Each structure stands twice: as C-alpha cells, then as structure tokens.
C-alpha cells in the first residue's frame, strides 16, 4: 500500500473519486478551495463531471438534479456557503435523494473569518434547512479519516437515500498527513436506483418530489422519514473511546479538537489523573450509548465553538453525571494547556 502526503481537502476529493462520484458542483470559498480544485482535475480524468457553479445555491441544486438522475454526486463549501445550500439540502432530504455535502468549517456568524471553527454543529445536526429532517453527519479527525469517512458517506447516502455531511474544520481541510489511499479501485457499493430519472422506457414514470398536497400524505411521508432515521440511529452510530474504563473524568471532543483533547488526556495520565476520551465520529446519529456505562465519570466537553455538542452530551448523560464545558471559537482554539488546567480545576 502506497502512502501519499496529501491535504484533508484533497483526501476527500480522492475518496469521492474512488467511491465512484461522477458529479461535482461547487463554488470557491476558503478554507475548502483545494477540494474544488482537486475535483476539477481528478473527476474529469475519471470521466466524471465538474461544474464551477455561479453560486452555492446553484451547486446544491445541480447536485439535486445529478442525484435524481441516478449519479453519485457531491458538493463542498464552508460555513457561509453551507448556509446558502440549506434550501437545497432540505429539498434533497424531502425528495429522499442521496448526496454528499462537505462542510469545512470556518468562523462565524456571518462572514466571520477563515480560521478553523466548529460552530456549525447545530446547523449540521439539528436540521439547518426547513422541515423535519436529519443528515448523517460524519466528523473526521485526521486526513486518513477524511478519506475513509468520505467513501463511507457515499455508501450511506445511497443505502438510506439521503444527504450525508462530512463536517470538518479548516485544520482538517488544510493540514497535510500521510494517507493510505487504496491503490486498487475501492469496491463501490452498487445500490440499485429504480427511482432514478432515466426516461420512462419500459416502466411507469418516476418523479423526484417532496411536495404532498393531499391531506394526510405529507404526514405519512414524514412518519416514513422518521422511521428511517430511527433505523439509522440503531445501526450507524460511530464513536471512538480511549482510557474510559477507569476514568474519573472523560473529555468529549470531535474533529481537530479531539486531537488536542487526546494529547491532554495523555499528559493528564502522566500527571496521575485518570482521564479518558470519547470522540463522536457520527455527530448525527449522536453516540448516546457511549455515555451510558461510565456514569461514575464526569465529562468535560471541549469544542471550537461556544457550546453546541455539549447539549447532546447533556441529553445523553440525562442528568446522571456532571458535564462541564470548555470552548473557544472565532479563530481561537482551546489549547492542551487550557484543557489540562480546566481538568485540574474540576478534579
């Protein structure tokens, strides 16, 4: 297996191509531009389609069309651009169309800045667009995982017929690490798409729609969606845990923040403080199970935001343990030292 040195943004692009993504539409925004550029080169080399759209709104709607026509499709952006895509994401969820949407987060609100942040957690996991819908949200914490989770995202999108989001931050997108990209073409999960718009030869017409006017129809459709989400919660929850069995305090962090938290845990262990780490990989479905056995522990949630995932941790803990929070955003990132000091204050 050959290792290559590559950025997180490019690793996502390479994974998409290897996963059989045949359509990419996007619009430049920092800090995810390397991904757009990578797709412009690589997807066309493999016979796929690249479009630099006139806007983020247009890009997500092109993805809607490509997906409705049966192609594996992806778009990417960063926070303000993802806000613009929310309309299309809601429509994709409503029409039950698979798509992969990459958000390499930057600081907000508004134009914010181009520094890494994790302040789009609510938007990604709680809806973002209008209506009762969910996205599967995958949060890579390394370049390798950015690659692996992107290939997984395409499979999950097709299996469940829904949009899947890769939620990274500017550090994950821009840093370079060795990557084991599969040398042979990865086996693409071939999900049949009898619902796709291909022309109605030999069958009844297909319609890609989210509009249900007749009384009761929309409620019935929504109940179906909720059933699907329940199933996903049962089957697709992913997380990683380290040193939790004997831990008195468990740090909870995802993405880049989890790397800093992991180093803090190692230092705390050296200092004879029994610390552990839970790292959610799926932010939705949230790994509630991870918080059940260790109710003896206290939790410290650290985020590159002012407290978003901490709400899900509190819900998961359900009052059975104390949950503390440490967060910075807008260009600030909690440091290993800040985490260690906070832990020492708590214990």
């Amino acid at each position, binding site marked *: 297996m050959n290792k290559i040195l590559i950025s997180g943004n490019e690793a996502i692009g390479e994974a998409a191509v290897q996963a059989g993504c045949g359509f990419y539409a996007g619009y430049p925004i920092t800090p995810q531009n390397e991904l757009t550029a990578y797709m412009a080169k690589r997807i066309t080399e493999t016979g796929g389609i690249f479009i630099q759209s006139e806007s983020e709104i247009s890009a997500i709607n*092109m993805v809607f*069309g490509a997906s409705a026509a049966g192609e594996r*499709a992806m778009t990417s952006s960063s926070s303000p651009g993802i806000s613009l895509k929310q309309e*299309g994401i809601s429509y994709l969820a409503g029409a039950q169309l698979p798509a992969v949407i990459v958000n390499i987060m930057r600081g907000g609100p508004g134009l914010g800045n181009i520094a890494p942040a994790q302040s789009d957690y609510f938007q990604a996991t709680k809806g973002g667009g209008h209506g009762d819908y969910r996205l599967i949200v995958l949060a890579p914490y390394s370049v390798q995982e950015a690659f692996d989770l992107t290939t997984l995202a395409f499979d999950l999108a097709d299996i469940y017929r829904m949009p899947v989001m890769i939620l990274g931050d500017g550090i994950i997108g821009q840093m370079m690490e060795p990557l084991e990209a599969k040398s042979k073409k990865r086996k693409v999960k071939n999900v049949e798409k009898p619902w796709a*718009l291909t*022309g109605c030869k030999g069958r009844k017409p297909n319609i890609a*729609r989210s509009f249900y006017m007749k009384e009761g129809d929309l409620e019935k459709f929504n109940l179906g969606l909720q059933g699907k989400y329940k199933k996903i919660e049962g089957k697709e929850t992913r997380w990683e845990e380290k040193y939790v069995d004997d831990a008195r305090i468990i740090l909870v962090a995802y993405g880049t923040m989890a790397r800093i938290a992991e180093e803090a845990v190692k230092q705390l262990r050296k200092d004879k403080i029994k610390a552990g780490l839970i790292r959610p990989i799926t932010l939705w479905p949230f790994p509630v199970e991870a918080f059940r056995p260790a109710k003896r522990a206290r939790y410290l949630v650290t985020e590159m935001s002012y407290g978003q995932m901490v709400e899900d941790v509190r819900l998961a803990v359900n009052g059975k343990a104390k949950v503390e929070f440490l967060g910075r955003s807008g260009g600030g990132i909690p440091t290993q030292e800040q985490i260690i000091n906070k832990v020492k204050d708590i214990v």
Partner: protein
Amino acid sequence: MTKIYSHPKSLRGVTTHYCPGCGHGMAHKLIAEVVDELGIREKIIGVAPVGCAVIAYDYWDFDCSEAAHGRALAVATGIKRVRPQNIVFTYQGDGDLAAIGTAETIHAANRGENITVIFMNNAIYGMTGGQMAPTTIAGQKTATTPQGRDVRTSGYPLKISEMLAVLEPVKYIERVGLSSPSNIIKAKKAIKQAFQNQIDGVGFSLVELLSPCPTYWGMSPAEALKWIDEVMTKEFPLGRIK
C-alpha cells in the same frame, strides 16, 4: 375513416385543477403533443416549476423532477450533464425564471446547456394570489401594486428573452402567445423547434409563452385573451428573438 386527433399519450387523463381560462392547461397539452410527435416520451425528463403548475408532473406521463423556486435550470443542468442522452426541459413561470431564479437562468444559458426552457409569462404571480411579477406591465394592478405598477419604484417589465438573446451560447429564443388558434399553432411550432434543437445538440433554447391568468387579471377568459393581444404584446412583442 381516418383518425386525425386523439388525446396525447404523454398527457394523463386527469381533471384539471387550473382556473377557467388559464394558459397552463394549453401549454401542458402542447408540450405533450410535441413529445409524442417527436417520439421522445421514454427519453424525456421534465423539471416542474414552483407556482400554479407545481404538479405539472401529475399531468405529464413521463419522468419529472421538482425544483426549488427558481432553481429549475440548476436541477436541469445536473440531470442533463449526467444523462446527455436524455431530453431535459424546464417549465418555469415568470417569478421562477425572471425573479428568484435569474442567476440560475442567465448562467445555465451562458454555459450553453443543451436544455429546452418553456417560459410561462403571465405577468403576475398566480399561486400566491396575484402579486407583482418582474414581467408585470407598467400600470398593471396587482395585489402588491394596488395603484398599478409604478416603474419609478418597482422598475420596468423585465424582458428576459431579449436579455438572454445577447448571450453567445443561446441558440434559439421565440416569444409566442396563447391567445388565438393561429397563435397557439405558432406556439406549438416553436416548442417543437426548441425540443428538436436539443435532439440535434444545438444548445440552449427557450420559448416564452404569453399566457392568460384571468383570475388575477380580474378578467373573463375572453377578455384575458384580448389583453394579451392588445396590451401584453406591446411590451413583449411576439416572434423570433434569436
């Protein structure tokens, strides 16, 4: 006996939900006839609009996609690029194509997408209750221009067909009116030409149909047809634009 007319295969036998005298029913039927005559029912993918014709796919008997308001040409671009062998068209009202979707319209046209656009211009927003459209005529009374459209504050009727005609990759634009039997025959001819262009790989083609909305114009169906001929065509002259 020779059969000279029958219900188009591409049009389902469902009861219309449109108001009396509305142009959508006529436009749906013309498209269905053209699709049948060109033998493309099994290849065509329509993109339905937002507005009164939102359930156009309940009338047409072929594959269709919905699109968010104004985004039809972005959705159609996605479909056509991955399925160039299929025939793709959008069906859009004036709000869809000339207001919220102006960017999508201009850029799809400027990319030269080999797509057919059917542009329904009735100078008003129908479904939401008769508000001003970009194409509302100066002085025309609507729910949001109760004193008549004042060009000093609301701008002039937007001539989207003329605007698109200046773009290099746009290959065919014609404006027709659904106002009389002879005009309807011309409309069908233009629609057929626009689809034939796509089949031949010519490129972006658009047919603008001046279409009656008697309900929100506050007219009888007969008066509405007269208003198209006497008022609307002054602002939006019929004929080939490009």
